[in-house]
């Protein structure tokens, strides 16, 4: 299968602190990869670096996406090339309604049938007139993020901790939405790929992930079947991974 994304010897710092220390990563079109790792290991930093947030400064290495070196491209350019992100903690944008944002992203009316369907599915009809994430619960924020991504239709989806702050009742809804977003429920979409960060692994009950990676102290230290990795982490934590390294 053709390669979609590759990072080569990626060194990234935030402020004075070096966060990623030489990450070599590769994934193909249509692959769903899961990142595991303890807090502060660099999972979110890796994702934010892929999206192009300037706070994450690339000191060495490069990012190749769809065969193009995007290391120096900004967030907007990467988004237009088909990278999309669901934030773990998205900012609040008071005054700009979710409805308005959806209309800007989709360049169409909120009442467009395809859009309405997604809003209903994610149970967000009552949130459209509110400022983005303004007073949203954890679950509402995640659903809003997924709704925006469903409309944005990126080729590479980055999802940072979809379960965090979501109550049990809503986890299934979030899981189904991710499944739908990734097009894995029906005919397999060969193009759309994903990187998902998960702490709990709940999301693996809904998403048919291809590969798992463990990131510790800014380095990718091993990869394998995501369910096996999860089982191992649940049994022994990341202690053995550190030793294994």
């Amino acid at each position, binding site marked *: 299968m053709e390669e979609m994304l590759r990072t080569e010897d990626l060194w990234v710092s935030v402020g004075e602190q070096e966060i990623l220390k030489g990450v070599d990563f590769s994934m193909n079109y249509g692959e769903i990869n899961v990142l595991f790792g303890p807090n502060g290991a660099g999972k979110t930093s890796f994702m934010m670096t892929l999206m192009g947030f300037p706070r994450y400064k690339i000191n060495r290495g490069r990012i190749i996406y769809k065969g193009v070196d995007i290391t120096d491209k*900004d*967030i*907007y350019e990467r988004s237009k090339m088909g990278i*999309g*992100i669901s*934030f773990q903690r998205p900012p609040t944008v008071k005054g*700009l309604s979710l409805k308005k*944002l959806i209309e800007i992203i989709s360049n169409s009316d909120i009442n467009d049938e395809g859009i309405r369907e997604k809003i209903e599915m994610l149970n967000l009809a009552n949130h459209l007139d509110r400022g983005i994430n303004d007073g949203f619960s954890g679950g509402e924020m995640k659903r809003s993020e997924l709704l925006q991504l469903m409309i944005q239709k990126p080729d590479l989806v980055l999802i940072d901790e979809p379960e965090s702050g979501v109550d049990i009742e809503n986890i299934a809804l979030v899981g189904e939405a991710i499944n739908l977003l990734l097009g894995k429920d029906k005919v397999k979409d060969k193009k759309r790929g994903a990187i998902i960060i998960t702490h709990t692994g709940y999301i693996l009950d809904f998403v048919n992930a291809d590969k798992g990676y463990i990131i510790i102290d800014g380095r990718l230290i091993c990869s394998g079947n995501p369910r096996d990795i999860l089982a191992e982490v649940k049994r022994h934590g990341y202690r053995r991974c550190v030793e294994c390294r």
Partner: protein
Amino acid sequence: MSVSSKYLSELRSRAEKAINKKALYGPDVDIDRYKQYIERGKVESLENLEQQIKEAAIITGIDIEERQRSGSYLQIDQSVVYESLNKAYEGQLEIMSTTDAISKYDWLEEYFWRLVPVDQDKYTAQVALNMTHGYFIRVLPGQKPQYPVQSCLLVAESYISQNVHNIIIVEEGAELQVITGCTLSKGDAEGIHLGISEFFVKKGAKLIFTMIHNWADNFHVRPRTWVMVEDDGMYVNNYVLLKPVKSIQAFPVAYLKGNRASARFNTIVYGLKDSYIDLGSRIILEGEDSRGESIARTIAADESVIYSRGDLIAKTKGYCLAHLDCRGILFSKNAKIFAIPQLVSEGATRSELSHEASIGPIDEEQVEYLMSRGITREDAVSAITTGFLNLDIPYLPEFLDREIKEVIRITAKEAM
């Protein structure tokens, strides 16, 4: 019967003594520069106005077709050119120039210059000595006209001093919405607009007053406004300034005299070029259980200077509650914002006054968030700015809310 000549003469004499008195705030304007006087004839309908004037009026919310208005008042320079009352509302309200009203009603003596001190400064004095009309609107007791009254105070020529005195009386149990557009039809006009506004909201009455200012680089503006609210009355003041102005200074006062009276100020200001903007609101809470809220959103771009003032003054023996919320975004290294909230409690031991004030840059995290959704940096900044200025103003007619949002959107986009 007109207002007594004795009273008018007393006012004149007090004004003469104050004609050189500088205002407490704002740069001092040499009003002697503005001596031009132009007499204009009336028009039959707003449709008959010159195109340039019509367009200027429309931008400030004026509906030329008057379909959803209960009445209209239009003044150009020093002349009243149009007054009308929708037939459906005859007997519910009256609209005329203040000049006509003080000749017609002797009882107006109880209202005319009773709130704004005639000798407050040279600008109040100038209006008293050289008044050039202004509107008088009165809603009869219990009447609630469905549509707003619109007024437009327009300046078309240079070196004009437009000295209007506006009076609104909302009688007991009545309700009124007023949309006022103050504007220039020529972008390079030099001059001054002086506006005295005295509003009376009687027992259980409601007044929603929305003012859109649309001035230009060489124009000075000095409004002086007092609103008195009686028991259970409600006053809402919406103010929008999104175009450059040479200087504007105003500090309108809502005097909550009655028990359970309330006032709310919503202020939206976008400082452009080298505008000098000194705006505020003062709420005096004298009635028991009175309530006040003052919300201001300001953006300072280019070389603009903005003073955003807010005073809450509690004087009641009973309970009162008031809050100030004053936020600013600074867009330019050469711009300045001064946020000056002030809370005063004068022996009001049960009053609860609070404020929050902030000045900051546009939030980069928000910009980047929107960029990650495929929105350019310019569009992201424009969307956030628009959102910042979009106060969800309660009681605002939907069409006006739409219109204000559209003006904000265009201004934010143009300012990028």
